[in-house]
Structure formats: C-alpha cells, structure tokens
C-alpha cells in the first residue's frame, strides 16, 4: 500500500524525500479528482493540507466509512488552520453528543 500527499507544491514537495508520492494541486476540481483516483489506486493514507481539505469537505466525507484510504488533514506551510482539531472535536460530539475536553 502507498502513501500520498495532496496540497500546494510549496507545502508538500518535501515529502518526496521520504518516498511519499506527491501530488501538487490547488484547485477544487483537481483535488477532488486526485482524491478519487488515489482512493481507487490502493493508497492507504492520503495526507492533505488543511487549505486543500477545506475546499473539498464532501469528497473527504465520502471516504469516512471505509477503513482505507485514511484521509488525514495536515497543516500546510502557512501553519495550522485548526481543521484537524475541528475534525476531532466533531468526532467527539458525534460519538458522545457533547464536547468534553475542548472547552478551554
């Protein structure tokens, strides 16, 4: 199984040094298409920069129910936008019905 990363070139090019497949994309259409192709192509993990992830929430949602691929938002080089934390918070709310440890 492979690992891929999607995002703007600046943020993701470094991952090539770790033998992770790099797919630079910034437009909504391209990101969507990339996610769909990678999901079919035996990718176990797709890292996606938060900037890119925030453009295509529905596409990411679609793959929530199957164990692979795991689409994981990571901060881009502009720093964290809190998308990842937001995902965790939403999960907690979904499972427990209330927010338990994000009220600080």
């Amino acid at each position, binding site marked *: *199984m*492979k*690992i891929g990363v999607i995002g703007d070139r*600046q*943020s993701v*090019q*470094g*991952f*090539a*040094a*770790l*033998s992770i497949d790099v797919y630079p994309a910034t437009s909504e259409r391209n990101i969507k298409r990339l996610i769909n192709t990678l999901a079919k192509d035996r990718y*176990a*993990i797709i*890292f996606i920069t938060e900037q890119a992830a925030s453009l295509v929430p529905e596409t990411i949602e679609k793959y*929530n*129910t199957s*164990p*692979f691929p*795991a689409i*994981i938002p*990571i*901060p*881009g*080089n502009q*720093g*964290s936008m809190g998308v*990842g*934390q937001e*995902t*965790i918070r939403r*999960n*907690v709310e*979904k*499972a*427990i*019905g209330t927010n338990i*440890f994000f009220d600080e």
Partner: protein
Amino acid sequence: MAVLRVNPTRMELTRLKKRLAVAVRGHKLLKDKRDEMVRRFMELIKGNKRLRESVEAELGVALRSFLGASLTMSPEDMEVALLYPSKRFKVHVAKNNIMSVDVPKIEYEELESNHSTYPYGMINTTGEMDVAVDRLAEALPGLIRLAELEKTCNMLADEIEKTRRRVNALEYVMIPQLEETIRYITMKLDENERGNLTRLMKMKELMKQAEG
C-alpha cells in the same frame, strides 16, 4: 404512541409478543455495544488529540525549514534534490476489529538505505535543506500513527452514532408501540370474551322464561 394496524386476533397477539421479546433483547445488546464503543472511543480520542497536537507542531517546524531552504536554493535545484527519496519505508496495512467495526491498522517499517543520509550532492543544496529533510523524516512515524488513530476514531464515532440511533429507535418507538398494541389486542379479546358471556347468560334467561 400509535397502535399498530393489526387484526385483534390471538394469532396476531402471539406474533407481536415474539417480536417484542426480540426487540427487547436487541435493545439490550445494542445498548451494551454502544456503551463499550463509547468507552473505547474515549480512550482513543484523548491519545488522538495529544498526538495531533505534537505532530502538527513537528510538521510546522519541518515545513518552515523547507520554506527556509527554498529561499536559499533555486526551485529547480530543490526539485531535483528531492527527486530521489532519502528514506525508504514500507507500510503494512491490515484491518483491526473494534466491536465489529473494521478499522485500519497501519504498520510502518523503515527499509535499510544503502547510501548516506542525503541522496543529493552537496554542491547545489544548502544546509537548511538537510535540516528540513531530517525534520520531516522525524515527523513521519508520528504522522502515520496519527493517520491510523484518527481514522479509527472517525469510524468509531460514525458507528457509535448509528448504534445510538438504533438503540433510541427501539427504546422510544418500537418497544412502546409493540407494548401498546399487545395491550390493545388483549383488551379487545377480553372484551369479546365478556360480550360472549353476557350473551350466553341472556340466552339462558330467555330460554328459562320460554319454558316457564
């Protein structure tokens, strides 16, 4: 709660009683499943939050180093330097089962690399580049662990929500409805029984009068 539209017969009553027994058992099982899943979820989500915080910090540092490196190098040189991976690894994936939810299990194995640390020459690259690659490599195991954990939490949360809906549907709709219908049929049957009895008594009286 509305009574189901059924014929008030003895046969229907037995059928409904069986359904109620199944519903009650299913409700109990699902409730136990939900409780256990929530417990597991609580354990995982705390780790998930902590891991995400540390990975995001590490990654932030690594990406900033790359930004620094790209200031001192031409984009072409940078691209060429990154073409050949400095670190090779393999991921093994499997499925783990938490309360009958298939969650991913991702194992990461570093492969021996036969060359020294950096796969590029020293002429066209700068020291910042070396630091950036190192930092990113350090962040990688955490990233992969995060991917596994976060996906697990995600799927678990989904399943918990689904199970909770089922539990609630059984508890607040199915079971009361069945109970109500059973009561309705029982009363109807009793009422018929009483009607029959009075009719018989009346008949007997009439016959006695006719005789006497």
